[in-house]
């Protein structure tokens, strides 16, 4: 026998076999074929459950957020009257935007006669222009609209002011001397024609500009309104541009921008809580909270029973899709959407402390559910579906996929609160268009041909 041990000789082959294994074993391809013999397929059914089969309660809460949290404002006069005006009645919606401008710039950079830029802090303010920019899509009007600027004369709070109250905070409530902004003095007016652009300008004289320079005066401010009936304008922004005469180069006038300290809107009437509908949106915002409890066992539909035999117990993984279906409802035209609204659904984490309960993450993803305004025009009745697949799976599982407890209360709300003065209404749980739960279920029974 060879002097060297046999295993030492045989070991020469080890690197080879390992190398071959490594080289050939990486790319593995299973035989794959399309054949009804190999895969007989499972059962897929769609089930739509009435509210009574999965829901236990629905209620609407209001008062989330303030009008001042919206970046712009609204101007309306006698808007939304008509046969469907449940909230507004004969008078229609009145809305005004309130603005308060802050400190004027203390200096500007001016080019002197020698062509050098120098700071100039000795400014003379000659006049001003209020530039208001409107949302041409959201605004409801039929033609050019005159917008009037009034100077507010009563102290008011830029955050809490409402149609009735100049100040409406916890512990302090001060009424306007006249609802809608108190006694005002007209500054000027201008006509906005949306066909010519989205901006209008109203000139403010030098005396008014001078009076607004006193930032300690809490009554300073502008109220924008209209006298044109049947319009509702959405204001995106309003700025005060000041015409100033520098001391360095008196032949030149310069436009400078004043701070905008407060922008809010006040309106009348305030919507009452709905009696026969579910509501989402508005400013302050409304939320609808539903308690849902999806069934664990199904007794239909017939195609499911035929394929699997009823009753059928369902587990979370069998739910490919779950969506809550709401039927749009035409409520007050004064607050009906005139542009798309985005809504969302989130779990109510602590239902016991509603309406102040914190909410869970959105169930509808980043985009939310977009609602078209025409769905809320009479006769309405459009079906809106909010995906809740993950939620229904969690409810069936009894916990989230991470093992956290799951709440069976869900809130339907606007994507951001408040989003607009407009709100969306849906048929309530007692009506024909009550919310329904649509499920797409899959069962693999019978799939595959293996033994």
């Amino acid at each position, binding site marked *: *026998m060879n002097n060297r041990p046999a295993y030492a000789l045989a*070991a020469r082959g080890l690197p*080879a076999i390992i190398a071959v294994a490594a080289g050939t074993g990486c790319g593995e391809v*299973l035989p*794959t074929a*399309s*054949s009804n013999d190999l895969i007989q397929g499972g059962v897929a059914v769609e089930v739509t459950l009435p509210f009574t089969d999965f829901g236990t309660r629905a209620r609407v809460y209001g008062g989330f957020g303030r009008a001042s949290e919206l970046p712009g404002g609204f101007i309306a006069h006698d808007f939304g009257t008509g046969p469907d005006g449940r909230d507004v009645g004969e008078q229609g919606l009145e809305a005004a935007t309130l603005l308060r401008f802050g400190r004027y710039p203390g200096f500007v950079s001016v080019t002197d006669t020698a062509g050098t830029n120098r700071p100039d802090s000795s400014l003379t303010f000659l006049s001003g222009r209020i530039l208001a920019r409107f949302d041409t899509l959201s605004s409801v009007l039929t033609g050019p609209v005159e917008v009037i600027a009034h100077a507010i004369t009563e102290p008011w709070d830029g955050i809490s002011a409402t149609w009735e109250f100049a100040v409406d905070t916890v512990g302090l409530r001060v009424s306007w001397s006249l609802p809608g902004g108190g006694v005002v003095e007209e500054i000027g007016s201008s006509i906005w024609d949306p066909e010519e652009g989205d901006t209008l300008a109203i000139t403010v004289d030098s005396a008014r500009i001078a009076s607004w320079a006193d930032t300690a005066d809490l009554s300073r401010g502008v109220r924008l309104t209209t006298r044109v009936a049947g319009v509702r304008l959405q204001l995106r922004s309003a700025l005060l541009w000041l015409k100033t005469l520098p001391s360095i180069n008196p032949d030149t006038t310069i436009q400078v921008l004043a701070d905008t300290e407060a922008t809010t809107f006040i309106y009348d009437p305030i919507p009452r809580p709905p009696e026969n509908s579910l509501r989402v949106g508005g400013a302050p915002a409304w939320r609808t909270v539903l308690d849902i409890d999806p069934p664990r066992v199904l007794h239909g539909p017939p195609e499911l029973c035929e394929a699997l035999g009823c009753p059928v117990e369902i587990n979370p993984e069998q739910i*490919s*899709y779950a969506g809550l279906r709401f039927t749009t409802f035409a409520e007050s035209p004064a607050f009906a959407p005139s542009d798309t609204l985005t809504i969302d659904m989130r779990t109510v984490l602590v239902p016991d402390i509603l309406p102040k309960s914190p909410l869970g993450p959105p169930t509808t993803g980043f985009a939310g559910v977009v609602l078209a305004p025409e769905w809320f025009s009479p006769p309405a009745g459009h079906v809106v579906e909010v995906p809740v697949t993950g939620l229904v799976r969690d409810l069936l599982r009894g916990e989230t996929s991470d093992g956290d407890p799951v709440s069976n209360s869900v809130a339907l709300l606007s994507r951001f609160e408040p989003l607009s003065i407009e709100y969306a209404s849906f048929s309530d749980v007692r009506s024909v268009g009550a919310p329904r739960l649509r499920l797409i279920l899959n069962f693999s029974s019978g799939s595959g041909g293996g033994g």
Partner: protein
Amino acid sequence: MKRTLIILALVAMAAPGRASGQSFLGFRGLGVPVGVADGRSVALGNLGIGLRQVGLSASDPAAAAHILLPSVFVSMQPMWGDFQLEEQSGTTRTTRFPLIAIGYPVLAVNGTVTLSLAGFLEQRWVGHTTRMVNLGGIEVPVDDRFTTDGGTSVARLGWAQRLGARFSVGAAVGTYVGRLDREFGRTLDSLVVGSDVRSYEEASSWHYGGYTFSAGFGADPHELIHLSGALEWSGNLKESPGEDTGGAENRYDIPMRLLWGATGRLSERLHLNTSFAYQDWSGAGGFQAGVVSGKTLSYGAGLEWQMVRRTTRGFPVRLGYRRVVPPFRYLAADPVETAWSLGFGVNLVEVDGVRYGWMDVAIERAERSSSPLSENFWRATVSLGITRF
């Protein structure tokens, strides 16, 4: 070195039941047989019995009787194949370690303890189909995909007893091991149902169990002839659902298998071997009607020529053909697998016909058919045997 061997053995042990036989065949049964998996047998078209020369075998209980030193050998099988199923065709590729065997002689009683883990049946394929389902009155295209991946192996513990210089007997008890993973996935067309609808996936796993017993003999009635025979008996093969899988346990009959083979020395350097296997699946219980094959007899034959032979080393060249009958049909036609094979051995240390360190390499060109399925594949088998570790 010893550590390397142990690691190699563990790697091979880690994948029981995964061999190189992936196929659609037997998709309604238990899959396709892994078959013989050592390089020498494959090259000779042998069915795992009747080869002259001392060795380790998973299917020949008496083969290890003449081992004089502790030995281990392991096989590796890369495979490249294609299939034709009605109008479709496709490819397949894989590499597996289908066999590891260990023999430990107990010289005081002229016997050898054997331990082996060998692939038995394998189910590894993917089926997919596109169909329409009606959801709420809307026809929705869905893509269904079914993947099955796994198989059965047999772990055997045996004893091979030498009875004189020309006769030996052996017996082994074994247990079926392995698992099968199945996964069904359904994707609904998002253009119809929207992107919020999730794919449906359901996975299940199954474990195999059961017992088997085999006994056999080896004899050299004449210096030119070697004979072997073996019988394999199995209890039910049990397929049990995994922890997260519903359903009841399935039991399948594994019919008795008879093996016999012979090697004849045609000249000093040229040997001819034949082998046969008989197994009648037609009465096996537990399977759907029409699944099992009616064919019973497999056979193979091969020539081994010692192209180079030195005092302590050899370089045999091999040629073989085999025709085996897999137990499960694709649809209605009985399946047949035929293969031509070619190979060589590198006997690093060989003394008096006993190999102490060797490598066997085989390459096969095989065809399987069970209408409407036909499969062709190239398969390489590399076996490495080491003694006195």
